[in-house]
């Protein structure tokens, strides 16, 4: 027993009081005694929660045990009262129990009997406390659940993205206002209805039903674009699984792309517009410089000729930059794969190499092309692929000093057509390699100073190759040369 346990003994017989006190004190309890009913009641009234157990003699002069008990019930109904009865009659015990005593112990009793009765009472008290604690905890967690629910509801309501949750039967169990708006469904009375009655979009319904199909249990999510009214919605539908892997329902997150697409289109229009507006005046400037340089407006001094040549070079660079920007804006607008047709890559490459021969010769660079074996066709946009190889070969010549070599090889590599452009040029520093496909990235060094470029070429090349589902990679060693490898998937039927 615990020393914090306080027990009140109310008995008119000093022997009983002393006996109880002696026995229970040994058990570690704190015992308070009262020699009559009034004194006992007063002690309880003074501190209603002060005692865990009251040992109460039923037959006392003055206030009887029964009267004390009734009075105690008013002060502290949960106080455990163990009745001591000298008569040992069942009647008085039953009556006491009826009035709310917890237990009784007949006189005379042995110390063991007393200990047993008290410990039983204390056990009961402990259980009561435990039950109370559990009840409080349950109430608290219920309150937490309610808070959590309201938190989730608030989050869902504030989200710009739509959320639609169904159970495993495909009934809608949760939606937010964004979802209602995007799917054009009313908010009223849709909960618990089958999805088919709520949403009209068949692609969405198919996705939800598809994810719920048991044979599709390996499908984790479906992403698709839905055209609803004038809006373009991107929808990600995923299964909700239990720990055992059982499908419990679905969650669909809806993203309104309309605004984004419009913005993208506007950006493209803007870039194209600005580029055109910039290009015309620069063309005119260069045209006029050409005239003057040609001597059509009178003789020029050497100094004037030199300055005008520089001006022409600069305006030419500007024009190239604008052209590249236009190209980029076209690729952003999804025009990199506009005209798809079956193509022979080696023929495209051959055409490009022929065009570049003059330039290579002028620079004293040997330009060679090797085509290894039969080449399968690819599906591609001829103009854009031409641009890719044009750029790579042109770069290779640009960055290769006189007496160097540029080699172009085309071969079939499994399901891919591999084109390699190898040069013996100045190479690219290791640190710059990962960034050379970035927009506006140019390697700046003593060796590249005399080379004109906009820094957009390779990023355009990469965009076009990727639009063809291909890939481009680069290897290089400074001072030794650079190898670009373009891999394009071959046409399969």
């Amino acid at each position: 027993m615990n020393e914090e346990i306080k027990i009140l003994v109310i008995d008119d017989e000093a022997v009983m009081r002393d006996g109880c006190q002696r026995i229970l004190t040994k058990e570690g309890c704190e015992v308070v005694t009262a020699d009559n009913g009034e004194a006992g009641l007063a002690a309880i009234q003074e501190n209603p929660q002060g005692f865990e157990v009251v040992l109460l003699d039923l037959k006392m002069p003055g206030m009887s045990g029964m009267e004390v008990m009734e009075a105690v019930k008013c002060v502290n109904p949960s106080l455990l009262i163990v009745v001591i009865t000298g008569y040992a009659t069942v009647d008085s015990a039953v009556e006491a129990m009826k009035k709310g005593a917890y237990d009784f112990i007949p006189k005379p009793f042995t110390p063991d009997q007393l200990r047993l009765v008290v410990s039983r009472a204390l056990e009961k008290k402990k259980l009561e406390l435990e039950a109370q604690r559990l009840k409080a905890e349950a109430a608290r967690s219920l309150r937490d659940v309610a808070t959590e629910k309201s938190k989730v509801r608030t989050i869902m309501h504030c989200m710009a993205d739509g959320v639609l949750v169904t159970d495993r039967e495909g009934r809608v169990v949760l939606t937010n206002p964004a979802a209602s708006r995007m799917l054009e469904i009313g908010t009223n009375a849709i909960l618990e209805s089958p999805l088919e009655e709520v949403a009209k979009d068949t692609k969405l319904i198919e996705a939800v039903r598809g994810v719920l199909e048991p044979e599709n249990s390996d499908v984790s999510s479906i992403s698709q674009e839905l055209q609803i009214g004038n809006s373009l919605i991107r929808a990600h539908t995923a299964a909700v699984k239990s720990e055992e892997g059982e499908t419990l329902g679905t969650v669909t997150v809806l993203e309104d792309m309309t605004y984004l697409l419009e913005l993208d289109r506007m950006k493209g229009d803007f870039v194209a517009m600005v580029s055109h507006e910039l290009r015309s005046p620069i063309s005119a400037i260069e045209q006029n410089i050409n005239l003057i340089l040609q001597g059509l407006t009178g003789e020029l001094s050497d100094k004037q000729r030199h300055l005008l040549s520089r001006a022409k070079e600069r305006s030419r660079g500007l024009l190239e930059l604008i052209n590249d920007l236009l190209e980029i804006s076209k690729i952003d607008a999804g025009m990199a794969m506009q005209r798809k047709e079956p193509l022979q890559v080696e023929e495209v490459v051959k055409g490009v190499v022929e065009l570049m021969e003059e330039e290579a010769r002028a620079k004293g660079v040997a330009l060679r092309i090797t085509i290894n074996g039969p080449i399968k066709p690819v599906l591609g946009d001829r103009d854009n692929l031409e641009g890719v190889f044009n750029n790579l070969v042109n770069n290779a010549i640009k960055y290769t000093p006189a007496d160097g070599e540029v080699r172009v090889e085309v071969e079939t590599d499994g399901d891919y057509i591999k084109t390699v452009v190898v040069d013996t040029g100045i190479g690219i520093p290791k640190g710059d390699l990962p960034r050379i496909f970035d927009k506006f990235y140019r390697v700046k060094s003593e060796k590249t100073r005399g080379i004109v470029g906009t820094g957009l070429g390779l990023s355009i090349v990469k965009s076009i190759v990727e639009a063809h589902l291909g890939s481009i990679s680069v290897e290089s060693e400074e001072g030794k040369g650079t190898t670009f490898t373009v891999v394009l998937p071959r046409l399969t039927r």
Partner: protein
Amino acid sequence: MAKILIVDDDPDLVEAVSIILESKGYEVSAAYGGIEGLEKAKTENPDLIVLDVMMPDKDGYVVCKELKEDPKYQSIPILLLTAVVSKISTTRYTQQMGMETEADDYVDKPVEPEELVRRIETLLSK
């Protein structure tokens, strides 16, 4: 000497081309838009037309098509002035222009004066 009509909405470009052609002794007349160009082509009956592609009122392709479809004017050689849309696929123009327009030749803007004169001489000698 041959009479050449220059059609371009950019007056600076018209002037530049005029200077080049006049220096070679050509008689030059100018129009500053597609509609005006089409009219002058019909009224002045030039020996050759230098025609800009991008013009706001009526673009060069349309002007070219209308002239080439008219038996009265289809024999007038047309040299299209194009702006290079992209460096990366300069070559596409060689093919596209040939395929998509009925112009007799084309030249990128800005053009080297000698190149322009050479093209015009070639077209006129045909």
